[in-house]
């Protein structure tokens, strides 16, 4: 018996459920493979080299882009667009929707992004450098590639979707923000199906590596698979990753009517802002965000079975999130806490949605995947309930809380319940 959330008191046409998942992660190109990697401790972090910056590490995806796109469309568009097209098509396929008969004007696309346009701008500057910065050699594709809606718009073009499409710029909180936006639009009756989540092409911009490196926040390790190590005393920064995870969201009433396989229900969410610093987190605001999501869900902290942390592997960020978690969950005896970035690195705009997807399988397999690479737990991060290095079987998982925080002090939390 699942302890009810406030969402369960809403009419079915105001209850929002997940009915499909499409993803590409550095360690898996579908939900099942990704889950197997997380349960078996398989990292997706590899050696990587990018112009100007040189050798580094990254979470690299190897999805089959031509499954849903022509080579021409791949060339014309962006990596973020390709990630979006692949994951959106996979999500729709997974949902079992009768796509040919879905009214495409009633489908909305809401894609969270940390940034967009850096990759394409760097590419063009690199090209014109070879022509002594002659701007007549600057591609006419630059603008359609770099408009902020590109990662969502390419999905619309590919799938013939004529409802609303746009991206949600929310730094590394974007994956959750996309999901939240999709749910809100369903509740407002702006669409009947929402394709929502987040994407990232960030490993293709040297600037993100260089900037984190200048901030002393870029991970290094002789073994790439051990570089992303949130909560470990010897963590030394972020592993940048690409990836994407888009969900098919529907109203519960619609999902029931078509007999959909319901993966989970969005029972609570919150977004707030630190308003204190460009990059440094604010645990007080993070805790407030978590508590607001719990309040909206009508849940107590100890009803959360899994907390999927945001921790990125930076010294400050991890310990500060743990301050917030200790404040909210410190007295909880059954809540498990894990971290998915330890496997895939930080997938930026996709992080929130990918990390949630990694945990959603727990509703069915009743296993909590671990945080890997914790050889020496930082005492500042020694939270009760941390699942370290080995996955744990549990009796039941009813509620999963997913943290995703970003620069400029944006915090986001979603809570998904089992139905």
């Amino acid at each position, binding site marked *: 018996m699942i302890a009810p959330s406030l969402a369960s008191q809403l009419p079915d046409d105001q209850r929002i459920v997940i009915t499909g998942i499409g993803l590409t992660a550095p360690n898996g190109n579908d939900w099942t493979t990704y889950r197997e990697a997380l349960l078996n401790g398989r990292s997706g972090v590899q050696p990587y080299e990018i112009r100007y910056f040189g050798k580094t590490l990254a979470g690299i995806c190897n999805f089959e882009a031509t499954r849903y796109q022509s080579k*021409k469309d791949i*060339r*014309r568009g962006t990596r973020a667009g390709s990630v979006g097209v692949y994951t959106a098509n996979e999500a729709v396929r997974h949902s079992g929707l009768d796509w040919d008969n879905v009214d495409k004007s009633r489908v909305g696309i809401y894609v969270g992004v940390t940034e967009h346009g850096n990759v394409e701008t760097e590419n063009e500057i690199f090209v014109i450098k070879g*022509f002594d910065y002659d701007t007549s*050699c600057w*591609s*006419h594709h630059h603008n359609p590639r770099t408009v902020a809606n590109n990662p969502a718009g390419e999905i619309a073009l590919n799938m013939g979707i004529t409802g609303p499409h746009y991206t949600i710029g929310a730094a590394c909180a974007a994956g959750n923000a996309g999901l939240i936006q999709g749910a809100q639009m369903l509740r407002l009756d702006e669409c009947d199906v929402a394709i929502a989540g987040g994407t990232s092409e960030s490993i293709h911009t040297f600037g993100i590596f260089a900037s984190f490196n200048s901030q002393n926040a870029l991970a290094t390790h002789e073994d790439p698979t051990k570089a992303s190590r949130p909560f470990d005393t010897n963590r030394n920064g972020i592993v940048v990753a690409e990836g994407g995870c888009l969900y098919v969201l529907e109203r519960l009433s619609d999902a029931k009517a078509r007999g959909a396989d319901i993966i989970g229900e969005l029972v609570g969410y919150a977004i707030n802002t630190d308003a204190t610093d460009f990059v440094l987190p604010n645990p007080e605001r993070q805790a407030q965000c978590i508590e607001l999501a719990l309040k909206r869900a009508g849940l107590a902290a100890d009803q959360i079975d899994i907390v999927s942390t945001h921790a990125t592997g930076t010294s400050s960020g991890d310990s500060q999130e743990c301050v917030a978690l200790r404040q909210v969950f410190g007295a909880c005896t059954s809540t498990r806490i894990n971290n998915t970035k330890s496997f895939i690195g930080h997938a930026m705009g996709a992080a929130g949605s990918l990390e949630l997807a990694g945990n959603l399988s727990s509703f069915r397999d009743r296993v909590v995947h671990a945080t890997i690479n914790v050889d020496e737990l930082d005492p500042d991060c020694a939270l009760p309930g941390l699942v370290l290095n080995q996955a744990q079987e549990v009796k039941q998982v009813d509620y999963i809380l997913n943290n995703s925080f970003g620069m400029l002090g944006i915090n986001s939390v979603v809570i998904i319940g089992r139905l």
Partner: protein
Amino acid sequence: MTPAEIRNEIIDILDDISPDEDLDNLKDDVAFREQLELDSMDFLDIVMELRKRHRVQIPEEDYGNLASMASTVAYLEPKMCDI
């Protein structure tokens, strides 16, 4: 470049722009658009690639000369004969 070399160069550019197309059976006297899925952005790619590869400038009023392979080669021959 000879007309044959110019043609080969255009084929190479089209192969980049439209990698899904079969260019082996391209008919030189038939408009590109009647044989290939090319839109205005693709024609701008042809112009851009000629500029980048050979510094050949094609003013907008001359774009009509790029309608078919035959007309393109004929138009480019005086511009590229010394390359």
